[in-house]
């Protein structure tokens, strides 16, 4: 289990999540910030549901009481050069 990676972008394992929850980061918002899970290039699209399920199991809460953190733009990473105004002097 210690080698089971939940968040591929940040290399967060099942064991990392267990340890963080045991320490007290047992809210999806703070678990995300403490482990870095869901903050890599995929922004949680790959991992968030697996982490929510594990957090729900570890804390004995139903899954719908473990909401996913708000999704932030952009939907997929965008080059700053694409967003930048081109007519700027």
């Amino acid at each position, binding site marked *: 289990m210690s080698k089971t990676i939940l968040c591929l972008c940040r290399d967060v394992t099942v064991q990392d999540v267990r340890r963080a929850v045991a320490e007290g980061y047992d809210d999806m918002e703070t678990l995300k910030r*403490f482990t870095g899970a869901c903050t890599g290039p995929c922004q949680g699209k790959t991992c968030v549901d697996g982490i929510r399920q594990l957090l729900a199991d570890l804390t004995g809460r139903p899954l719908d009481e473990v909401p996913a953190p708000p999704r932030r733009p952009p939907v997929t990473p965008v080059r*700053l050069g694409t967003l930048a105004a081109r007519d700027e002097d």
Partner: protein
Amino acid sequence: MLGPSVIPGATSRELAPAYDAVIVGGGLQGVALAYELAKRQFGRIAVLEAAYPGAGASGRNGEMIRSAFATDEWIGLFDDSLRRWQTLSAELDFNVLFTRAGYLLLASTDAACEAGARNVVLQRRHGLHVELLGHDEVRALCPEMSPEMVAGGILQTDAGFAHHDATLWAYAQAAARRGVEIHPYTTVTGFGVAGDAVRSVASSRGEISTDVVVNASGGQAREIALLAGVDVPIETFRLEAMVTEPLAPFLRPAVSSPAIMGYCHQTTRGEFVGGTEPDVPTPSTSIKSTLDGARDMATKFVRLFPRLAGVRMMRHWSGVVTQTADVAPILGRAPEVDGFYLDCGWVYGFVGAPAAAALMAELIATGSTPPTLEPFGVERFSTGRLIRETSLVVASTDAGVT
């Protein structure tokens, strides 16, 4: 069985019927103040947080740390803070990732260089470690910076940045070890005021007796104060920030640029983090990110660091700050209600928190205002003694772009 703790040091216990102090807002100001009050053995202290600790501006800010400002008042408060930042990890027994990488206030015009030269004289008089840099020196420090943006700058060599979440967690655990109760998901709904003094706090989880209340509620500070009949002259603005995918180290110091109204640094993880502000801020309590904000940041940061054109923005978020007419925080007593204290109106709240917490705790515990804190009282808006700080990178409706 106890419920979730949300962060180590927070609690899901029931509220006690009475506390010696109740702090409204579990952001960095509130939690740090709770720690400092506990250090002074102030008694039973509760921090009430409407969401999770750090949910507001404390977890959304740019994390940058400096004390090289342009007035005695700002330098006094923020240099007290900088000295605390330099030993904060040891004090709190938790690594807040303070990185002493330097803080560059970039000058892009000759006029900005001249103002910088004047400010450096004042800053040196306060004993600050500042260097006045010319074009070539800034280019050597930040080789990726666009040469056309560089006229010179002030480098504060022992300033830098830290990790905002780690700082909050560090204070929370240190406060909890000293008996502070941090109650997440607890909303304040009113205050009991009798004979011009605060007597109680009403919350979503029950009523509490207390003679001391501190309003450290960040973006909600105006509404919270009004519940006690206290009118705080602050306005709420939305700021936006972004983070890129990680890249190899290319930028060492924290950088502020008045020319693009922006501030940025590269984290130890390699991400470029920063925010920019429009020339004229729009009052807003919304924390929705905007496409205009993303384009403003992309345009300005590519102008400052052309290589960022090929780097991807990973995430973009918003937060709110409450701003006073002189953009300085409000720290001290609320004159209308005995026992009601104000620790709000922050724009530079992350850097200022360690000093503000210690000085506010001194005021609350001893009853006398530390001299460093005195200029920041709310009375200045009725006496007209505003603080004329000119080195801020903040869009302001009253003072114009400062």
